[in-house]
């Protein structure tokens, strides 16, 4: 397929059947609308482009900056669109909770502005909430601004009313599905798609999914927060249900490992929420079939908003087991017992000072380079513990003929590495007992040289 501009590639995303062997529904066909295959990576490409497009000619004429309250996908899409049109983009956020997203946005050329957290010593009469402050700042800005206003802008849901919804109907041979399930962030995609589907058949059952209160699923709102969204209308949804982050990640893992869909957490949340809702419907259909004429097959569609790659730290925080390094090589700290570490050769600060004079050991400082540069033992080399760990996987990086003195802040890491070096056959690797803290406390010299 050939395009003149990448923005022309927004939309027309695939609708992919989920294998019944995976979802286990007997009377319902379940489809995933793969919004993650939009060019900038998410469902927000449509809304961002539709919201920005109208204002672009004017913005280009007076050099406006595009501004949006977003900590994720809308910001990504807008940053790219701004860049393509020679404009700058600023994302204002109070919850840049995914470090990768922040770095990616910076790479895309976005400016990031963070709103302050809640005051600890509260003044209850101060009702200047961060959003009010944000809107004041917009009004006071000296540079002209194009504020896309995704939570209130009807062009957000219109992108889905005109694009996503009709595409689903076309791919289902002109029929709207019986069920439509989507997560609610700005409510743009669910509102737009639901509207388009209901125009075809008013009885489409629409399920909106929000995060459980005090939980966090990137990109969607909690049950209370949806009421702060201008596009949110409770009547859009037949059911508004909650999903927690654990369920979102479980659903995501199924989509990734069983269906080949590299979905992010919101895709997983939609899949989980869809199945939970549809299982009940499926059971009712089975009953109907038992005592009456065979029920018609039903169809359900859910949205996969974006891809998994940007959420590794989110997953690491909640499910480290999914990223676990289970393959143990012999030369790692993990293979050491407490007894090995306790038996590691060690020297006190006083012994070390004499030993350094006499035997000239190689002094290895395991701390971070930043700390090493500030102060260290004279003549030492800096190999941070992670790097030494990597080196040792491959074998001994030191000559056996030269003694080694290992130093870390308090002597814990150095004892482990001394034990490991000894086990790997180094004849004289010793740990500095009490570490560089004890060295300093004993008044022994440290330099910056």
């Amino acid at each position: 397929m050939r395009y003149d501009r990448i923005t022309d590639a927004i939309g027309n995303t695939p609708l992919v059947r989920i294998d019944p062997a995976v979802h286990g529904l007997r009377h319902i066909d379940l489809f995933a609308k793969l919004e993650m295959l939009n060019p900038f990576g998410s469902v927000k490409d449509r809304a961002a482009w539709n919201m920005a497009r109208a204002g672009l000619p004017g913005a280009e004429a007076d050099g406006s900056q595009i501004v949006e309250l977003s900590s994720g996908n809308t910001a990504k899409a807008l940053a790219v669109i701004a860049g393509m049109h020679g404009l700058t983009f600023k994302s204002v956020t109070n919850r840049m909770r995914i470090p990768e997203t922040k770095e990616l946005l910076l790479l895309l050329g976005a400016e990031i502005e963070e709103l302050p957290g809640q005051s600890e010593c509260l003044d209850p009469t101060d009702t200047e909430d961060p959003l009010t402050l944000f809107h004041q700042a917009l009004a006071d800005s000296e540079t002209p601004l194009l504020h896309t206003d995704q939570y209130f802008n009807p062009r957000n849901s219109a992108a889905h009313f005109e694009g996503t919804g009709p595409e689903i109907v076309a791919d289902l041979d002109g029929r709207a599905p019986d069920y439509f399930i989507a997560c609610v962030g700005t409510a743009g995609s669910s509102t737009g798609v639901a509207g388009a589907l209901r125009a075809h058949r008013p009885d489409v059952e629409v399920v909106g999914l929000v995060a459980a209160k005090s939980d966090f699923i990137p990109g969607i709102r909690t049950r209370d927060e949806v009421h702060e969204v201008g596009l949110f209308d409770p009547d859009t949804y037949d059911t508004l249900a909650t999903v927690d982050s654990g369920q979102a990640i479980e659903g995501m893992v199924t989509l990734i490992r069983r269906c080949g869909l590299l979905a992010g957490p919101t895709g997983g949340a939609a899949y989980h929420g869809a199945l939970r809702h549809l299982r009940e419907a499926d059971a009712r259909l089975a009953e109907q079939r038992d005592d009456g004429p065979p029920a018609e097959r039903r169809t359900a569609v859910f949205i996969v908003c974006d891809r998994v790659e940007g959420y590794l730290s989110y997953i690491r925080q909640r499910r480290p087991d999914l990223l676990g390094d289970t393959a143990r090589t012999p030369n790692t700290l993990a293979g050491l017992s407490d007894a090995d570490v306790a038996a590691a050769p060690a020297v006190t600060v006083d012994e070390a000072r004499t030993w350094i004079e006499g035997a000239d050991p190689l002094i290895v400082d395991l701390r971070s380079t930043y700390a090493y540069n500030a102060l260290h033992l004279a003549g030492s080399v800096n190999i941070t513990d992670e790097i030494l760990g990597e080196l040792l996987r491959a074998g001994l990086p030191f000559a056996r003929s030269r003694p080694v003195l290992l130093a870390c802040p308090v002597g814990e890491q150095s004892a482990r590495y001394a034990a490991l070096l000894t086990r790997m056959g180094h004849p004289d690797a010793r740990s500095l007992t009490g570490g560089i803290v004890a060295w300093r406390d004993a008044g022994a010299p440290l330099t910056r040289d």
Partner: protein
Amino acid sequence: MAEPLYLRPRLDGRAASLLAEPGLLHSLVDALESPLNVVLPEQAAANADAFQEVFTRHRLKGRVLFAHKASASSALLRRLAATAAGVDAASLGELRHALGCGFAPERITATGPKSLRFLWLAARTGAAVAVDSADELDMLARLLRAHGLPRCRTLLRLSGFSAPGVRVRSRLSRFGIPVAALDDVLARAAGYRDVLDLVGVSYHLDTTSLTEKATAFEGCLQALGACRDHGLAPDVVDIGGGFGISYLAHREEWDAYTSELAAAALGARPALTWGGHGYGLRNDKGTLRGSLALYPSWRPAAGGHYLDELLSAPSSSALGGRPLASLALEHLYDVHAEPGRALLDQCGLTLATVQEVRRPPDGGADLWVRLAAKADDIALEEHGVLLDPVLLPRPGSTGTSTDSGSGGPVAVHLFGHLCLETDLITRRLVHLPRAPRPGDLLVFANTAAYCMDFHSSRSQRHPAARKIAAWRSGGSWTWCLDDAYWPLSTEGDPQ
């Protein structure tokens, strides 16, 4: 009434055990009048140990400095003087009080806005001074030279931190030296080396946000590096206070209550507050605007746990991503913390007598309850903390309450005894398990931090609440007036 919406307080060990003595509490209020403040010095000592334990777990040489501003109690301060903790004194009066309660000057840091007299006493005795601005640094150096005072341990309080690549629209702070101006201030500090001993840098951010504090912590590490370029070698990072208290026993109650507040603001349920007050929320054509101007009464991580999370937070990639505690340790830096609120978690209760219970004139179902106390005496609401009082019926009192009807849960408005429409103990409708009767006690939990002393007044010649210290001794509770407390038993053994 519909399902009651409780916000029941978290009551740990000592406070819970004291509440199990209604006879004692009633006789105390009978003798000493309502309202009455009770502080629990042993709990403060336990809290200080718990904070210290977090530093120890991170292998850090840490120091806990109690932010005196949170309480005026002598008993709490004297008990803390008998632990390893120090004090953050923010006024001349607090400094004098701390010295008089047994804190040696080495354990005191003077912070906040400073008068010449405050600076003089701090420098004269040998307390550390956290300097707030370049001008204050000059003022301190002039004072030290003019009076031939001993070399003064000095910290620079910094502000205006930013993370790489991000502009932080922080709340404007009146305090601290902007990190952007650090170089100039360090050049001055180097010039004052004869009289000033620069021992560290500090920050205190008024935010619950861990990321903002992690950014500031990192900024301090970088500032300590910059000090070396000026030939100065400070090695303390003082991370201020703001570790918070989780006031409620049940997260579900907080979640449900705040959801209902939002629903009430949207008109989807009857009001939960006096006059439909929205606590910062408002309805804008069906969309909820504003934000809850409330302290997060239930917090997933508060106090020592919050400190632990901060110390465990990874540094930015510019600093290699190691946890902040490891970075501090590797640099051989000590970390000081100044918890005020968090150090007084579970350290005090405020008791108030129910004076009158009546039906509102419009015949509504909610009861109007007047206490023998003013809103100032129980300043939970002033600090945005929503918390149900515990009802302690007067022992032996029988008969039914004015209007309690079934004797089940009731919704009440709590009024103070000032002749003033606005003297509401709380603006919200409080749900209690049964109707209170005149003579019953309402006990407000966890008031030691800020709520007892910060706003207390003698308006309309109502007495300010008396304060007593209570502790367990040989299986029963003992008490004395706050000012009569010393951390000694009558035999002179440690209590």
